[in-house]
Every structure is written in C-alpha cells, then in structure tokens.
C-alpha cells in the first residue's frame, strides 16, 4: 500500500491483516450489477446502490508479486508507488492533488495476484476519476529521479512494516517456506536485496506488459445508473489499445513431504506461532466447508480457539484461524496462529492449536455449532453491504480470481449446504502434521538495552 491507514495498530499486527476475509453480498436486497467487456478487453462491472452518497472506482490490474521473476520481487508494489508520480498530462503529485481538490480520497494496494487503485468521491465527479485512471494506464512517466526517491520510500515502508515488526517477519518467512516453487512465496513488498537491485527498466517492462486494458477490471460503484457508468468507462478507456499479455503457465506447487519449520530469531517480548496448510482456493467444492471450519475455530469469543486457548487455558494472548481462499492460483493457505502468553512454553501453545483441528477430525461438530457458524457468516454478509467500497472490492476480487459476481450471489446458499460431516472431512483431509509449515518467533535478548536514553534538558 502506498500510504498507511491512520495509526495502523501494529502490536502483533498479523491478526489485523489476516482477518480481512471476504464478506460478499447476498443476492436478494443486493445492489444492481451490470457487466460489460469492452472491445479492447477491459472488463467493466457497474454496481448501482441508490442509498450511497458516495461513489467509488477501483481499477484492478491482474499483476501482483506472483508475476515477478526471482530477484525482482517488489516490482509490482514499487510500480504501484510510481503510478502517483506523474504522466505526460498530469504532473508529479498532481494526481493526488486533483483528487483531493475535488473532495475525493485515493490510494492503492498490491497483493500476490493484483495491483488495485481506488478512489472515493462525490458521484458527480465520476468522469474526472475515470479520466485520471485511464491516463495513467498508458502515460506513466517513470521519471528516473522519482524512481530513485520512491525506491527509498519503499525501503522505509519495508523497514516499518516488516523488518521492525517481528510477527510480520514470521509471516514473510512462513510464506517463503510454505511455497517452495510457486511465486506466492514472494513477499509483496519485496526482499530488501531485490529492492536495491531493481532498475527503472524493470519497471518500464513490467508496466508495459501488464498495464493494458485486457489485463484490467474496472469496478464502478455508487448511485450512478449502470448503463451510464459503463458508457463513461467506455469513453475514458475505450481507445486504449489491447496489449499482448504473456500466456499464463501454471506453476504447480509440489505436495509437501513433511512438516516444514522456520524460526525467526529477533528481539521480542513474546513468541508467536503461525502455521499454514495448503488448501484449495475459491471455486473448489471444499471451499465452503473450509470456510465453516475457520468459522468454528475462530469466529467470536465463543469460538473454539478463543474459548480454549485464550479463555480457559489462558495460554495465548490471541488465537485464530483464517482461510484466505481468494487467490488466483492453487494452492491457497489456511492459517492457524497464536500469540504466546508470558511464562507459557511455545510448544504448549502450538500443540493446543493443532489439537483443535485434530479434534475436528475425530469428533463431528455439533449441529448447533454449525448453525451458529452459518448465522455468523450470513450476518457478516449483510453487514458487508454497509460499505459501497467493500462491495466493489468483493466484486473486483471475485472477477480477478475468475469466479465472477455469480459467486457472490450464491455464496450464502452454498454455505448453508455444508454439513458437520463435510467439516469433519476437511479436518481429516487437509490438516495433518505433514502438510503444515510452521513459523515461530523465537525471542532473543536485546543487543542494546531498551531504556530511556540520554535526556537533554530544555534550553
């Protein structure tokens, strides 16, 4: 992300960043969705929600850290930063200034599969928002001096988000170990060594290759009539020529042969355990049962992990599970993680985490608990509609990973079909010891003693 959210909570920030699971929109009562595919291959989805006083547009480019060659990690994210650094028509910094002057907000984020640019603004500024996005799809300057500056900014971002945050380091290391072949092993922000080595030419190549209409999805959401919204997108983007996108060759991640463990030794107060299991991604029939399994384990204070590890045994400061199925390629990962309480042995917390999934494999989840999990998912769906931005994000995501809006419409119904036996089958099939990769934060003693240093009195 180009800019941090206001006061990001970073103490064990992992659970904030991971819990952003999907909460799609139910079909009934839902907004009106119209789709179009322009001649140049640009996918357009217009969402009309009459109650919204705000419009949003999101441009999803199907390029993320998985598209980066080894040694060039961080390319997509650095390019995201450069997208704010000027085009032939819109000078450096002018993009942000123009949006702000019109009362809009803007930002962008990059993940393993995509780079996404978004704006929020008053509905009557749609033309402006679209023209700014269309402009930087093709006209980016990538000024050499700006590139050098922005490389430094991203290095600072990496220091802040990853290197000085022990739990983030564990997440990064776990990913790198869980995928031994698939480029999902790359950190989105890039390895520091790669960031130093990237060249402006790398960025130009990346930009020209991936920033083309046939590799993008534009989502427009707000009170605007969908036909009008689509016409405006056409007017802004229609003339941009199609590009040649490289043919995607599937990377098959070989199956795990046994548990993998990685340790991060860092100055830290408390240990942290973060385990990942390869599981099917969105679109696979097991997806819904895996969702329910995550829900049973970790949704709310009555969930099994909270109740047993945090509340009853009091061995973890927090404990959770998360299924991140919205990926473009196989396999996705299912996470189990916990923060170890002071005075507790890490292995005890680890064992307790695993025990919960092992238990699910042996004992069927009671019907009442399944029902509770389904109710929670359904309620979260409805609440998810509260935000027009969130609706647009879900739609963009569904389009990106190839399941489309229909997926969102049918989601609750599919969740409702899952049985306790399905959940038990998931626990048996995917959560054996041999399939997991475990990242452990091992606190080491401080090199320098942390104490208030040399105070200097006032002048």
């Amino acid at each position, binding site marked *: 992300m180009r800019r941090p959210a206001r006061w990001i909570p970073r103490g*064990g920030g992992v659970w904030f960043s991971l819990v952003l699971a999907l909460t799609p929109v139910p079909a009934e009562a839902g907004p009106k969705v119209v789709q179009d595919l322009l001649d140049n291959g640009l996918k357009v989805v217009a969402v009309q929600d009459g*109650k919204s006083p705000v419009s949003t547009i999101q441009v999803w480019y199907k390029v993320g850290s998985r598209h980066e060659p080894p040694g060039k990690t961080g390319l997509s994210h650095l390019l995201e930063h450069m997208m*704010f650094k000027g085009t032939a028509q819109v000078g450096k910094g002018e993009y942000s200034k123009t949006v702000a002057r019109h009362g809009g907000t803007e930002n962008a984020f990059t993940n393993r599969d995509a780079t996404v640019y978004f704006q929020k603004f008053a509905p009557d500024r749609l033309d402006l928002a679209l023209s700014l996005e269309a402009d930087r799809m093709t006209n980016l300057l990538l000024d050499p001096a700006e590139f050098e500056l922005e490389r430094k900014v991203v290095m600072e971002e990496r220091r802040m988000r990853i290197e000085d945050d022990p739990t983030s380091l564990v997440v990064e290391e776990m990913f790198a170990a869980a995928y031994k072949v698939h480029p999902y092993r790359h950190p989105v922000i890039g390895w520091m060594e790669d960031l130093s080595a990237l060249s402006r030419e790398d960025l130009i190549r990346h930009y020209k290759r991936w920033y083309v209409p046939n590799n993008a999805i534009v989502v427009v959401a707000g009170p605007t009539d969908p036909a009008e919204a689509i016409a405006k997108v056409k007017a802004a983007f229609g003339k941009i020529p199609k590009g040649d996108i490289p043919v995607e060759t599937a990377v098959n991640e070989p199956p795990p042969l046994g548990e993998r463990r990685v340790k991060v030794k860092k100055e830290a107060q408390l240990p942290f355990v973060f385990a990942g299991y390869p599981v099917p991604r969105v679109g696979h029939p097991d997806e819904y049962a895996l969702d329910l399994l995550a829900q049973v384990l970790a949704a709310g204070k009555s969930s099994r992990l909270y*109740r047993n590890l945090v509340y009853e045994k009091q061995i973890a400061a927090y404990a959770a599970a998360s299924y991140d199925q919205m990926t473009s390629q196989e396999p996705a990962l299912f996470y189990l993680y916990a923060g170890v309480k002071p005075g507790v042995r890490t292995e005890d917390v680890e064992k307790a985490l695993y025990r919960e999934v092992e238990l699910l494999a042996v004992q069927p989840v009671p019907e009442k608990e399944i029902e509770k999990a389904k109710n*929670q998912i359904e309620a979260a769906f*409805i609440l998810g509609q509260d935000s027009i931005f969130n609706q647009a994000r879900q739609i963009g995501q569904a389009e990106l990973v190839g399941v489309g809006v229909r997926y969102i419409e049918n989601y609750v119904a599919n969740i409702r079909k899952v049985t306790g036996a399905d959940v038990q089958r998931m626990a048996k099939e995917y959560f054996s010891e041999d399939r997991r990769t475990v990242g452990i934060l091992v606190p080491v003693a401080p090199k320098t003693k942390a104490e208030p240093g040399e105070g*200097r009195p006032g002048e």
Partner: protein
Amino acid sequence: MSRQSPRLVRFLAVLILIGAVPPGRAEALDLPIKKLVFENGMTVLLLERPSLPFVVANAKILGGSLYDPEDRPGTASLTATLLTHGTASRSAIDLAEALDSVGASISSSSADDFASVSLTALKKDVQLGFEILADVMMNPSFSENEIAREKAQVLARIKSDLDDPARIADKLFASLVFKNHPYAHPVEGTEESLGKIGREDLAAFYKRYYKPNNVVMAVVGDITEEETIEIVNARFGRWPFRNVEPPAIRSVPKTSRTVKVVSKDLKQATIRLGHPGIRRSSPDYYAAYVMNHILGGGGFSSRMMARVRDEKGLAYDIRSGFDAGLEPGAFSVSVQTKNETAPDAVEMALEEINRIRKTVVSEAELADAKSYLIGSFPLRLDTNRKIAAILSSVEFYGLGLDYFESYPRRIDSVSREEVLKMARKHLNPKNYVLVIVGKPDASRLP
C-alpha cells in the same frame, strides 16, 4: 469544553422530557437525525436507515481514562472491558454464545475521554441485541475470575507493546507532555497500576460514572423512532438517574524542551515531536484543523509529506495532528525513517513548523485544503457504523445537531491570516517534547 459540566447541566435541564422529543434535526447530507432524551436522562440520537436489515448502536459514557483514580491508571479501561465479561444473569461464555449464535456483536472499551459500548445486530435480532446491551451496561458482575483473566490479557498486551516502536514512542511522548495530567498515562494502565486495581475499584468506578444521564447513544439502521423509544424504555427504563460528579482535572503543564532517545535495535527511528494542543471545544478548533491540514494532516497534499517523502524519500509516512479532546490533547508530528536520517527528518519537521508560523499560506494552498475538507466530508459518513460513531461523538463533545450543516461553513470561513495566527498560537518550535525510539545519531539532533 470546560470539562464535562456543560453536558451535565444540559442533562439536568432536559430531565423532565418524557419519551422522545426531537429538538433539532440535521438535514444536510440527508441525515434526518432525531435526538431523543429519556426520562432517566439517557440521550439517544437516531438515524433511520432502513435500506439494510441491521442496526448499529454506539454508546459513549463520560467515564474514560481521564477519570482514572490518580494511583490506578487503567481503571476506566478495565471497567469498560469487563462489562462484556459477565452480568448478574449471564456468564462471559453465555454472553458470547448468545451473540455469536445470531451473528451479533457487542464490544466495549475505553478511550481517554469516554468509555464506549457498541452493538451490531441484524434487524430480526434487535430485541435480543438491545436486551443484552442493556444487561452489560446495567448489570455487569465484575467477577474476580474475569478480572484476573482480563488483567493477564492486558499485561500480555503491555508486554507485546514493547515490540512496537510506535507504541513505545506514543507512551513516552504522552508521559513527557502531560506529566501529572491524566492524559499522561496509557488508557490500559501500566503493569504497576494493574497490580493495584481490585474488584472494589472497578465497582466504585462503575457506580460513579455508569448512569443513564451520563450516556449518549447513537442508533443507526433499520429501526423506527417508535421502535427505538419502545426498546430504550423497555431495556434501559429501570436504570435510575443519578447525579454524576466527575473529579476536577489538573491543568495541562507547560512544556520545556525535552529530548529522549529510547535506544533499541531497530532499522528505523520512530519519532514523535510535539506539545500540548487544544480542546475539541476550543473556538480555534476549525482554523487550527485547516492549518494542520496544510502543515502535516493532509496526507499527500501536506507540506511535511511533500518535503520529507516526495522530495527526499526519507520516510514512508509523516503526519501531524491535534488530538483535541475534553482536555487539550497533544499536537504531534509522527514520522519513521532509517536511523541515519532521523536528525534530518526532525529538522525538516521543525523547519515546516517554523515556515507556517512565519509566512501566510498561499491562496491556492488554502483553497485546496478547504475544497478537500468540505468535499470529502460525506466520505466520512459512508457506512452506518461510521455514522453511529460520529453521531455519538458529536453529541458527546456537544458539537450540536447542526454540526453536519455548519461544518462546511466553519471550514470555509477560515482565512489565510487565521491560519497564520493559529500556527503562531498553537505550534511551538522551541518548547517541544521529542521522543525517538531506535538507534539515531543523537549528536546530530537539533
């Protein structure tokens, strides 16, 4: 705001209103807000938004950590958190089960100025939701077991905060700026203070502040005025009015230049620079807000960001802000940069503070700031949950139901001269507290 008193006086004045009387309405932004004041003094702000089948309630109680007993910081926070850990008739587990079963949620916490309790429930579960909400607000049990559990949780969090340079810096900065003023201590308390807090402290704090006349609650969503009145009367009606007398608060001490480095093996230096600022009720608030937007509050449009990030590539983020509360919270600049460039970042921040104090901002800068602040205002109200949080704040800080209408006018009326005046009056480039966590080259600091 001269502390809490104006609000309390108002509560007393409207006491006799039966049921609901809407004295004011804010039509701007299509927000037909109704203010309902109940017999027992409880104030409810209602915004009917029937387009989605759910309801959000956000209650703020005048009983934040500002009122922590002096030797027991963390009391307000523990009190607020414990509300959802068991009532006279429900255990913590019962509460969690009852809410989770229908996908509803209730959370409670404390901030400096207020405690807050929020409910989210589907329309069909609104009765249950409010019943539990009232139960946790009116009948918390504060069981010894739950207190011990929660204390252990807070202690673990305090410990893990030591791995977060931003938290270390924030805590030290607050303690140096506010000294013996209650804003000096962290909301969650300290290891030492938690050891002292017992059940009787929580019960006493609860008894003193958790009164209907000390609560403002925003209700937003698929619920009518009639339903709201009925539910609030049914669930909160038996909660008796009782006078609340908050303690006198010391005034915020003067700052003399103080520099502290917390030496820690980190790649970046995390920097906080600032001093006491203004209250939310200050007549200077809006002009100071506009001034700060230009200086360091306006993201990529701000001078500090342009200088430190865009021109020099020294930081991912730099920002400044006034933390304006019931009391004069801090003005602060926050930035992280690699250790070697920490002195440069500090120097640039000070230079920008000096510059905005010396020369008037340009017409264009001011116009841009205004058009952003006014134009983006509705974006802050784009979900029911955000609206509920803002509504309860508006009422809590006594900003008036015409807040949504008057905000654009207030921003628009700020002149270049006022911006200069605010900078001179509320920014101090000499007497500030500077905190750096990391391994900066201290000899190069200004």
